[in-house]
């Protein structure tokens, strides 16, 4: 099997991950599930970056850097997603309390 064929198989898998992830990110209703879709997309990017390094340019570190950046983007996305979710939950409860006091007043 030639290296090119293997590269194409791996990249197809990466494309599959990106496609599935996009479906999830677009179709899900809750923040956390949308985040999971985005993570899957980035997972595809990881795979594609790794394949690009191995088959196309192993003498250069650029593809590896791409993978590192994708990992960091995932971490940032997750952390901010969780923080926003927590903030949202608090805000929702505050709203409810505000409404209750409005009724009384």
């Amino acid at each position, binding site marked *: 099997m030639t290296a090119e064929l293997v590269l194409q198989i791996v990249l197809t898998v990466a494309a599959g991950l990106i496609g599935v992830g996009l479906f999830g990110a677009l179709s899900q209703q809750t923040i956390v599930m949308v985040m999971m879709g985005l993570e899957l997309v980035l997972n595809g990017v990881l795979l594609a970056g790794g394949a690009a390094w191995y088959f196309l340019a192993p003498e250069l570190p650029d593809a590896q850097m791409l993978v590192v950046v994708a990992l960091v983007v995932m971490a940032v996305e997750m952390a901010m997603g969780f923080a926003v979710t*927590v903030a949202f*939950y*608090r805000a*929702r*409860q*505050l709203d409810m309390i505000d409404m209750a006091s409005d009724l009384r007043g």
Partner: protein
Amino acid sequence: MDVIARLRTWALARPRVLLVDAPGVTMLRWSVEAELDRRGWPCAVSPADTDLLVVLGEPGPELAEAVEVLWSQVLEPRHRVDVQRTEDFAVALDQGRAALVRPAESGTKGDGRPSPASLLGKDEKEDAQDEGMGQAGHEGMGQAGHEGMGQAGHEGMDHGGGHEGMDHGGEVAGLPMASTGPDRDGLELDVLKVALGPVLLGWPTGLVLRADLQGDVLTSAELAWLDAGTVSTAHDQSNSQRAALDRLAHFLDVAGWPTAARDARRARDRVAEEANRDEAQRLAEAVARRVSRSRTLAWTAGGIGRRGSGGDALDRVRRWCDMASGQPVEDLPAMSLDGVAALVEGAEIGSARLIVASLDLSPVSAVSAPEHLHA
């Protein structure tokens, strides 16, 4: 075949024992514990961990029912031993082990083991309000819903789902779903109803704590004794030094300090032997000193369960240490169950266990306290 039988005998030579002591059999429990220590049979902390269920004395009707549920959760090979009198227990333990080793005939497996769902139905009558239990999440209760629960409540309890958001009140696996409630951190976490007790390690047998659990924080706690009112008032009048060492051992079990708990029990048993008073006193003082001076224990258990004049859990344990080493200590007033419930309110589940273990609760003192709760 012979080899297998021998292997089985060897493997089960030191079964794990879950002790259930009916009220008023303290001395019997002490002797059985001493015997278990001598034989090197470990104590179980949950039914899943149990080979031999040893019931001491005669449990009242409610406790007996709880023990039945507990028994239904013990896994084969298992055996139940009832011990009534002090002179029987060594023989009973030997017989228990022999019964354990005998391979169950094929086909009996599963007999007498109701499915978790059927247990749920049985318990329903008992506690309608326990449903709902949703812990964090998952739905469905664990085995047996509750009450019984022996140990730990865990079993049992669990369940409902976490669903926020959807208050459909539906049922899953026979269990209602949990709902959410306001919590300390403002995050609307799921509320799970739990019942701790009546049989737990280092927990007064027969005491049941019902509470809401959010994450691991207990709220709206209520305490009650099983068989309240029917308990014989015959209190074992035992040596206060031995009693203090026993309480200390219970507390150390809960605090997760097995070596100190073992030493406290051994000291307790030595104190009873008249032969070697000095050595017993030395052992008791050593363990008392070790516990009361432990910085790590002070760090981990300090500051919880603070009660007006009585200090926190750690202060109460240090009083026991003083009693254990033979110094006279004046008694703290007995605490009502409502008072205890107020102490564990808002505590993390582990702290609540430590708080209860740091109070000398017994059904007898509850009966004498006028405002105790009835189940």
